[in-house]
């Protein structure tokens, strides 16, 4: 997984998920820039 996620409950009960870059290294095959 390149990303980690964090789920937050909104005041009206809906969920919100933040997807963030994982702290660990990105696999070499995926690491080069556009």
């Amino acid at each position, binding site marked *: 997984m*390149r*990303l980690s996620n964090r789920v937050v409950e*909104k005041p*009206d009960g809906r*969920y*919100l*998920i*933040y*997807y963030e870059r994982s702290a660990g290294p990105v696999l070499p095959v995926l690491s080069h820039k556009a």
Partner: protein
Amino acid sequence: LSELRWHPLLEEWVTVAPWRQDRTYHPAADHCPLCPTKPGHLETEIPEPDYHIAVFENRFPSFTGEQGRCEVVCYTSVHDSSLGEQSVEHIQDLIEVWRDRTEELGRLPNVRYVYIFENRGEAIGVTLSHPHGQIYAYPFVPPVIQHELRAHSRHKRETGRCLYCDVLVGERGGERTVLRDERWIAFVPPFARWPYEVHIAPLRHRTGLLDLDPKDGESFARILKGLLQKYDRLYDLPLPYVMAMHQKPPGRGGVDHHFHVEFYPPNRSRDKLKYLAGSELGAGAFIVDARAEDTAAELRGL
């Protein structure tokens, strides 16, 4: 909950969700609900001051609770941007998000189909300009997908082969190819119903996002970005489009499909749109104003 009404003549569901009349409509850029919350300003849908990619339940859902889900996928925190302007690496992250949502929503007990899509541009009816897509987790398999699955099953039964794989065999000559690498192709299908309709698909048989390996994901991201850049170069404006991902339904081992993404830009020229009218809406018969071979050559050259 929405009311599902059965259309007996077309044998398909119509979803009635009157509360969607009140959904947010073209807010000013400084009141965009998909931007991160700025210090000292009203809270948006996303309370944090920045984010990479965010997903939340639609405030005006067509399906919720035991029926399914409607989610909004915010591609980036940058308001004046687009999917095609993201780096390949960022799009790979987005593919991972789409995979994660496909898996999680597909596990909900009443969900029969997870549909990922984007509506872009006012011409398509978009009410929020911030770069975002949507996911509908339906309590039924929607009609277009049903048609495709039926055609796929019949072809498989008769020939032993995947229908879409055979469509791709027909693209080996390259005259309808827009972009291609060793894993993915973008092409205007010979049966396109819109002048600049494009499909992008893996050349190897993959049933959906969950089948893609990292190299597939990287290639998918490059081809997707490449196509969207070409679209915006076509008339030197942000081309409106609908992006529709077609993959196999969740959790049914026996149901096969060939993953592909369809794009329908409504433009038939820089300042003229194709409208769905009498023949298309009333009879379901599309009349298209251009040959796939010509529009593919035009896009290929951009």
